[in-house]
């Protein structure tokens, strides 16, 4: 069901993504036939707004001429991971203030009886009041309002900037949390009060409490950042509203984003996946495994039928669950900086240690002395030593090779090049294993997907990985290094809703199901109507989280309409269950646990055909060639032509081996592979057999 809303969008749209190292910008000028401008500037961690402003400067487009800025920020991500949080107080049900510190009795790793955990709200700022609601929603002990007021004053006195109200069973009956929030607002007027049920209206007090605490603790930080950015932009003549990327892959107005700040915590990786889904759909690839390899880690996500998988159960680090709908991105611990070693058994190990950004790989010349995956790529001729970004003091390839010979080769009887080859092979095996686990965990065969490779290092490894996994094709977008910024440009407006029902399907009140889902639609549409940006259409996506009676894990079942009978629901569930688990259990009844709705404000299609300027294209393959250099594949050197990616003719067909270089990414096409360029400037690589 689609509702038409009049389209009115800006002609000039800029997407700006702040990453760990670089701030990337892509600007699409609708007034000039979709002309694209790109900028890449160093990220300024103390105040990301400076990096944003320099990216705008570098793009060379008048800021007051931009119609819409869409922004992805890691301000809240960094705040949580580094625990540089606003001083936050928490008020809980009596007897339960330690919930967010106790967790669910876990340790960070299966083996090793050690670990460190720092709760988001320190224990002395967590107070308790008399109130109690039972599991069924019945009030057992009324809220002691005087006690609550005293607790609020105490936390205010203690210098808190924000407040979390976290009562047991508030998802079943929020009456006490609502009343408490009113009282808090009276005696402490403040934008930063989070009641637990407002972000996540589901049972599980630890996860709900942490989600609410993170929200409150990053709110003041995000708010200050947005204000700084707004004033920087206004100073340069951009006076309109701007949009911020959320972790669900949708955008929201900067005016409203702080209310649910926790939703921005995982927004960086989400925007890359959104861009992948968009690019893949235009190119005719609707099922993708995204593979974003960076310096310290690699992000992997699944896209089915052009829709990124979304999860409500992401844990951003040990014992830090943020249970709001977010694009389901899995981080695997291998990146360009992962260190290779010979272990005590005389075998080659990749990671888990990483050289990170500092000192980084040996070839960055910042004092790194341990061989990394990036260094292996350099030794093997896959990376061009002249084109490395972020190098402080150039280190020769010979010097790097000597370290490989010494640290890896010598103990196992290999020379420096062979050692680098072995490191690369094992690194690929490790990443391929991680990708398999991500797809198999969701019940998919990875061979049904194409690999979408981005990030600086993704396209370096993609064909080898695809071969390892049996994936037939690799898609490398026109601008792999700015995929996250592109995600900002193409993302839709989006609001997600969840309600807990928890009833057996055969006893389900279908009228209630309809009214819940229709309530979601109305609420989402009203929120989108408040945005400054008008979508072309509004799309509603419904689903149910279901399980067999007796189970605790949930399966998400798409619903095509708000109206359905019980038999249809049961059948939909059984079908989805079989598809995922390959097990049929007709003997057992189903339960409907949650109803979900995403309300999506669809923005007009963005033309990606000028991501690489067509005017810069060469007329022949030969004219795009930069050099030929020896590159090591599978135990041998091969003379490999190296092409300027942006000069490749649009209809280019390349048989491997070949290397494509562009400003911030290198694509390796191995012997036996064939690459074809498409209209949007993507490279589609048919992967040869192993």
């Amino acid at each position, binding site marked *: 069901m689609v509702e038409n809303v009049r389209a009115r969008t800006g002609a000039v749209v800029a997407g700006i993504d702040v990453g760990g190292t670089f701030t990337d910008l892509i600007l699409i000028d609708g007034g000039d036939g979709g002309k694209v401008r790109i900028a890449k500037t160093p990220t300024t961690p103390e105040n990301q707004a400076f990096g944003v402003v320099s990216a705008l400067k570098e793009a060379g487009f008048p800021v007051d001429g931009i119609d819409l800025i869409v922004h992805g920020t890691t301000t809240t991500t960094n705040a949580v991971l580094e625990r540089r949080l606003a001083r936050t107080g928490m008020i809980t049900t009596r*007897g339960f203030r330690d919930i967010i510190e106790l967790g669910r009795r876990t340790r960070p790793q299966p083996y090793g*009886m050690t670990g460190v955990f720092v709760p988001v709200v320190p224990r*002395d700022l967590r107070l308790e009041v008399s109130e109690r609601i039972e599991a069924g929603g019945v009030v057992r002990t009324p809220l002691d309002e005087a006690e609550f007021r005293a607790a609020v004053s105490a936390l205010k006195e203690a210098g808190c900037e924000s407040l979390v109200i976290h009562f047991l069973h508030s998802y079943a009956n929020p009456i006490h949390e609502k009343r408490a929030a009113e009282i808090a607002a009276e005696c402490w007027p403040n934008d930063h009060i989070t009641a637990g049920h407002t972000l996540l209206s589901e049972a599980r007090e630890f996860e709900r409490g942490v989600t609410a605490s993170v929200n409150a603790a990053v709110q003041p930080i995000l708010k200050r950042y947005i204000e700084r950015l707004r004033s920087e932009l206004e100073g340069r003549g951009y006076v309109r509203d701007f949009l911020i990327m959320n972790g669900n892959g949708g955008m929201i107005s900067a005016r409203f984003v702080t209310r649910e700040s926790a939703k921005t915590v995982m927004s960086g990786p989400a925007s890359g996946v959104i861009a992948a889904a968009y690019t893949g759909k235009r190119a005719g690839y609707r099922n993708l495994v995204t593979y974003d390899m960076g310096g310290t880690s690699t992000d992997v996500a699944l896209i089915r039928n052009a829709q990124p998988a979304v999860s409500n159960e992401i844990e951003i680090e040990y014992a830090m669950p943020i249970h709001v709908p977010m694009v389901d991105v899995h981080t695997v611990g291998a990146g360009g900086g992962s260190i290779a070693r010979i272990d005590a058994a005389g075998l080659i190990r990749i990671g888990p240690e990483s050289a990170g950004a500092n000192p980084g790989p040996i070839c960055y010349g910042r004092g790194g002395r341990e061989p990394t995956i990036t260094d292996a790529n350099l030794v093997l001729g896959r990376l061009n030593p002249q084109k490395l970004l972020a190098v402080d003091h150039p280190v020769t390839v010979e010097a790097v090779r000597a370290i490989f010979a010494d640290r890896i080769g010598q103990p196992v009887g290999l020379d420096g090049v062979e050692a680098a080859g072995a490191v690369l092979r094992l690194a690929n095996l490790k990443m391929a294993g991680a990708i398999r686990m991500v797809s198999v965990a969701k019940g998919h065969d990875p061979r049904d997907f194409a690999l979408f490779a981005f990030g600086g290092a993704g396209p370096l490894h993609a064909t080898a990985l695809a071969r390892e996994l049996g994936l037939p094709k690799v898609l490398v977008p026109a601008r792999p290094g700015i995929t996250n910024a592109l995600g900002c440009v193409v993302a839709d407006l989006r609001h997600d809703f969840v309600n807990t029902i928890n009833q057996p399907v055969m006893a389900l009140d279908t009228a209630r199901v309809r009214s819940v889902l229709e309530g979601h639609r109305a609420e989402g549409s009203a929120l989108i109507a408040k945005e400054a940006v008008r979508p072309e259409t509004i799309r509603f996506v419904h689903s149910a989280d279901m399980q067999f009676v*007796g189970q605790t894990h949930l399966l998400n079942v798409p619903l095509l309409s708000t109206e359905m009978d019980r038999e249809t629901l049961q059948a939909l569930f059984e079908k989805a269950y079989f598809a995922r688990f*390959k097990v049929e259990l007709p003997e057992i009844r189903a339960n409907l646990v949650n109803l979900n709705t995403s309300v999506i404000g669809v923005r007009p299609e963005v033309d990606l055909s000028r991501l690489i300027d067509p005017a810069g294209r060469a007329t022949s393959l030969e004219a795009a060639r930069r050099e030929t250099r020896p590159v090591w594949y599978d135990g041998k050197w091969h003379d490999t032509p190296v092409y300027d990616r942006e000069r490749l003719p649009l209809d280019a067909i390349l048989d491997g081996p070949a290397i494509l270089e562009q400003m911030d990414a290198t694509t390796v096409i191995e012997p036996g592979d064939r690459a074809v360029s498409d209209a949007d400037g993507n490279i589609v690589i048919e992967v040869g057999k192993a």
Partner: protein
Amino acid sequence: MTSLDAITLSVIQAALQQVCDEMDLTFSRAAFSPVIAEANDRSDGIYSAVDGALIAQGAGGLPVFVGVMQYSTKTLIEMIRDGRCLPPEPGDIYIVNDPYLGGTHLMDVRFVMPVYRGGEIFCWLSNTGHWPDIGGAVPGGFSASATAVEQEGLRLPPVKLFKKGGLDPEIYAIICSNIRIADQRIGDIKAQAAALLVGQDRLFEILDRYGDETVVSAIAELRKRAAEQMAAHISTIEDGVYCSKAYVDSDGVVDVPLVISLAVEKQGRTLTFDFAGSSPPCAGPMNSVLATTLSSVYLAMRHIFPEVPISAGAFEPLIVKRPEGTFLDAKYPRPVSGCAAEVSQRIAEAVFAAMVRALPEKVTAAPAGSSGNFALGGHDPSRGRDYVMYQISGGGYGGNSSHDGLTNGCSTIGISKSPPVEVMEQAYPVLYRHYALREGSGGAGKRRGGFGLAYEVEILRGEARASFVMDHGRFGPQGVLGGADGAVNTVTVFRNGEPHVPTHLSKEQDIPLQAGDRVRVRTPGGGGYGDPRQRDPELVRRDVRLGYYTAEQARDLFGVAVD
């Protein structure tokens, strides 16, 4: 046999590990019961065709299963050879849970499948899943007062549950007639078998790619190298004998402590574990079978050296003298339900307590080391049905050379999460009065122990019976190098407002309760590490500010004055 290069070896090692990890994943995601699907109380591995030796095991398996399946597979191979068990055919899967044939407690059910190449058995795949019920005197299987294994549930010798690929309906029917909530077990059985089949497919891909002979040579070489790797770690320890003791509160039937007496001798490149002097087999269910005892030593060493991959080779330099005549080598019909959950953790504690003297930088003071099983079975009149509720809980970890112990960590032998209070209250007629950090419970030390848990549950409706299988009620988790012990576990049951403490402190079965009665549990804190008077006074003041200790405790335990 040609010698294999380091690259091929590393690649095959990673590939075999991947097979096991995928089996673990398949088992968990397809399993029906939460114990397996959510708590990951399961494990999968590849075992030698010749002697059942462990080739590779999933990284996410439950730690207590680390060494167990190689013994059950070895026993099966011997029984087939001796004609005590039907010979295998392609497509067969054996089921076995007999503790005395290389197992743990009855709830841990193993599937064992031969993998054929060219008509010969190439290797065995096996997995273990903890079934939520296996029959016996009490739902769930943890009977604190059983005196014979027959009271603990259905005991299966190795029999073919799948014959030539098909489920045997007769054996299935026998199992279903002997366990509770049998209708849901088919979901777990299908999942457990599916995991083995996925493993077989993936293993075939590896054999086809690298060649059977290469993989066989690699397996032999990897075993040798794993032994060398463990030996290299061991050789960093100074030669000598390291002794320790650990105590189980009681066996649940006779109220005297059971002692684990351990002497670890380091000589050259081996460690020899001698449990001589430990208590004789006991009347109650706190006996351990040999496979569990060995596995407990291995898992403790893996906690100390987590970087050594799990394989039979890694266990070779760890020589465990068979503890004959003690409760750590129990024979039929001694009851054993407590072995995997509690005794195994005391064995690990004894290993930690001995090894911390040898490796003070690597080993922690004793962790809480109990699974904290509290089972409540009753009738909910408002729903008109019976229920069984399980509350498991964590406790404090021991301090270590660089950090304080973790608060409310998982049991030493487990990796499963405890259930949320809200979910428990939805499902059962109970109300938690508090669920809190247990102040003051961490053993004082330069690095203090982590804190235990304090909770209290009230019965809202109907009648119920409470059972406890916990430990460390008599002696707290050991502090080391001058650190104090963590606080002991306590259980108090309030009936009509009158407190009742179990005679066995941490164990009792079937305490009758009615609406309004309450169960109060305090779980152990971790042991302290090093002299508490050397603790940074700033950290002591912070601990007082956070309410972890009182000002008096800061003064008396740490010698720090706090205003």
